[in-house]
């Protein structure tokens, strides 16, 4: 029987996260903290002609935040900044296909919020 929270997809991305690392000579480089648990994520990436061509994350986080970062980065890599802007919080949560408590929702959205900030900084 599958675990209701730690589903196969979550455990797979937790053990083998996609886009894990640091992009050298990046166009953006942000760090975001979750003060509740002290977790950290660092996002780096490159943008060419309005498109997100490269993205990578490193950090300390739970299985939910790591899987979310892995799935979200896969989802937005190669997309235009304009289309990424339309992504809503709920879309990120949908990627995980699980029900989350409010505390764990923060874990899942850490990557989303840090990308929002990266994009704002980039466009300034």
């Amino acid at each position, binding site marked *: 029987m599958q675990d209701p929270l*730690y589903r196969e997809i979550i455990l797979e991305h937790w*053990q083998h996260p996609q886009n894990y690392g640091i992009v050298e000579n990046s166009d953006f480089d942000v760090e975001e903290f979750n003060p509740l*648990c*002290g977790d950290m994520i660092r996002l780096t990436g490159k943008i060419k002609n309005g498109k997100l061509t490269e993205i990578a994350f490193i950090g300390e986080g*739970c*299985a*939910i935040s790591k899987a979310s970062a892995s799935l979200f980065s896969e989802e937005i890599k190669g997309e235009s900044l304009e289309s990424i802007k339309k992504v809503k919080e709920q879309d990120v949560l949908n990627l995980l296909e699980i029900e989350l408590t409010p505390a764990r929702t923060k874990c899942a959205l850490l990557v989303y919020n840090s990308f929002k900030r990266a994009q704002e900084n980039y466009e300034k």
Partner: protein
Amino acid sequence: MKQDFPLFKNNPDLVYLDSSATSQKPQVVIDAVSNFYTNSNSNIHRGIYDLSQKATDKFEEVRKKVASFINAKDASEIIFTAGATESLNVVAFGWGRKFLKKGDIVVLSVMEHHANIIPWIQLKKELGIKLFYLPLTKDYRLNYKEIALLPLAKKKRIKLVTLTNASNVLGTVNPLDEIIPYFKKLNPEMKICVDGAQSMPHLPTNVSELDCDFLSFSAHKMLGPSGVGVLYAKKELLESMDPFIFGGGMIKKVTKEEATWADIPEKFEAGTPNIAGVIGFATALDYLQKIGLENIQKHEQELTNYALEQFAKQKKVTLYGPKDSNNRLGVFSFLVDGVHPHDIAEILNRSHIAVRTGHHCTQPLMQTLGVVGTARASIYLYNTKEDINKLMEGIEEVKKTFRM
């Protein structure tokens, strides 16, 4: 024991292992608070009428009870605050701000709670004092003799040593009966502040024997209501200190331009205190004394031994804290290899096991240990071997879920 605590009756499946965060309350404490509001509620130090006089008398009796609980010389040495955090802030901003100067050194330790770090960081910014952090030994004890490495000229600048009696993460109990004389020998003028928030619920504390200058603690960790704390300080210190919170009840005389302060302890108790909470706290102290701190200690040490044995058998689990139960509380911070503490707690929660996770308001300690956080199980008088067994089963479940 659990039958004295209605929360356990109402949550029969709960395995409560978070007493370092806050303790559960026995029925008698809940009744005392409820009874005060039902039959005796009125403000204190204000009214001429009987009800107010009675409430005042009751409130002042608790002050005497607390003084005798820690063997203070005088009830006026007991200040009621909102909690141990406020108590430490009174030390920093009532005493430190007045008596510390640029270049003075405050000694603390890497195992302090943020409540005993951040006020001093603030004073560092404000006054230019220096902070010296005592490190840990390899077996998670306080390496207080490290202070010997400080040059003599600097040792003379130490004005305050502020230490927790017990770590809320490691469970380590610091032997204050050795540490305080060791520091006072360096300089008898130096003041000693003890954070008793973690130790007071478990260990007898005698301020006269310890000869500490300040002691802070919270009622809610020792079976009492939340929102009540205590600051003990020697009388002459309290008299020389500035108040920290200003307003009603702490003055002698006020004109449009000037105010003078009431005598101690009122000088430090501006505004209406948590009267019902203080009265409930007295019942908590009675309850603790009826059972006896020695018996509580004995029970907890047995459980701690048992838990340490069980943790030692666990593979792929790291325990952060001393491996023997001497000078140690039943606080067990641990990690399962590669698994984030939140994920540990999530799995444990499914079996109704309540543990705390994260940095436990001790980020400098987490940095010292080289982790972002831990899962922490902590016990009190009502816990049983069965609770520890369930925790161990829960940890097995964590390993299974994360494919170990």
